[in-house]
């Protein structure tokens, strides 16, 4: 079995190598060949509809090169382009190997998994919760200035919004006249002892977060990476 390989780095994607292997079989019989990846990363084989082409697995390719014929292969690998990228093993004369019916079924019928962009992410869940809370998150009078909302991670934003809502409800009952307190209670139908407990918990949590955030902000401000000096090291 004769083989040539080439390895190139993928443009604009540092650390992804493209490997091609050209296999030639000068003998007069079909020969089975095993191409094993030597790079330090998983094989990303050619796929159709999310299913790998026949013969590919996590470590490389297994297939037949026809008599006096050739076969070209290619795959990607998220690893540095070390040389040589593959080991080619001649597995001898190709026999009629029974194909795995289950593997054929997956390849022919297509992967039944839902597409990855249909899966709600953690951030997506938080967004949904914030929306379910009503218009609090959209309220310009809310916990954060409108201009800064984009800067606060959604999880933090939605937590602050929920806290602000509870505080607001508490404020309406603080030093309220009988009339306005009754009105507020009627409107909310809230559990007053529960609200009071939650708001005092919120106060403690907010102080702890503020303290930690301030410490982190100080540390972040003190970070000074010598970019120029490091660039020379690279």
């Amino acid at each position: 079995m004769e083989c040539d390989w080439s390895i190139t780095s993928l443009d604009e994607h540092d650390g992804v190598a493209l490997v091609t292997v050209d296999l030639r079989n000068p003998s007069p019989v079909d020969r089975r060949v095993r191409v094993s990846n030597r790079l330090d990363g998983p094989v990303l084989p050619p796929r159709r509809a999310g299913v790998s082409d026949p013969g590919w697995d996590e470590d490389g390719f297994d297939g037949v090169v026809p008599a006096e014929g050739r076969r070209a292969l290619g795959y990607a690998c998220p690893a540095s382009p070390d040389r040589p990228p593959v080991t080619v093993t001649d597995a001898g004369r190709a026999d009629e190997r029974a194909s795995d019916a289950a593997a054929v079924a997956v390849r022919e019928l297509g992967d039944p998994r839902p597409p990855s962009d249909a899966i709600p992410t953690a951030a997506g869940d938080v967004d949904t919760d914030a929306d379910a809370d009503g218009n609090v998150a959209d309220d310009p009078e809310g916990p954060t200035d409108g201009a800064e909302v984009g800067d606060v991670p959604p999880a933090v934003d939605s937590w602050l919004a929920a806290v602000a809502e509870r505080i607001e409800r508490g404020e309406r009952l603080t030093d309220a006249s009988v009339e306005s307190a009754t009105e507020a209670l009627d409107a909310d139908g809230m559990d007053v002892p529960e609200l009071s407990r939650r708001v005092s918990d919120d106060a403690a949590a907010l102080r702890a977060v503020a303290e930690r955030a301030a410490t982190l902000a100080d540390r972040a401000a003190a970070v000074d990476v010598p970019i120029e000096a490091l660039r020379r090291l690279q």
Partner: protein
Amino acid sequence: MIVAVAGGKGGVGKTTLAYNLGAALGAVVVDADLGMADLPHGRGPDLHDVLSGRADVPETIRDGPVPLLPCGRSLAGARAADVRELAGTLRRVETEGGDVVVDCPAGLRADVGVPLAVADACVLVASPRRFALADAVRTRELARELDAGVTGVAINRITDADDPPVDVFRRVLGAPVSAVPADPRVGRSVEAERPVATAAPESAAADAIRSLASAVQSCRSR
């Protein structure tokens, strides 16, 4: 022995039939509907966890009147599950628990193809309408392609108003046809985890299930 319960259309009662067939055969019933599971789940790891390498087969089989291997219901779980692992998993269930009945999803994707590819036999489920025949034929073709012999066809949920085309089904599909009458006790059997053979052993539905089971059994001895 691995028996796949399949049928092109959704909502024809594949899960109910698989559950009751599992009871009649003394088999473990596996919910292979990776996207829209039906069988009762309970707590603990499920088929999604096995197919994504997070759990082992024995810990996912739930004891009960009919032992079950349930499937998760989350999209994320369905995304993480690798259908290529399903064949090995079903064989593993067979080693652990004996006979296996696989409740296949609707459609003709790989999550139906893989159970059919590993199954020794296949039971088709169809609704008692003439147009249901086309779906059954498509699934039969896939089963044939993947070497799962059709041992029986269940025409499911027949009401008095129906005139089930039993002869047409038998002639076209070339397999014994069982007419399963609509019986609320069958419908309730999965949720109540009470197979109709226990709940109403004398009923016509229990009879039909028994005849499907004996057709499957006869395929074992061949």
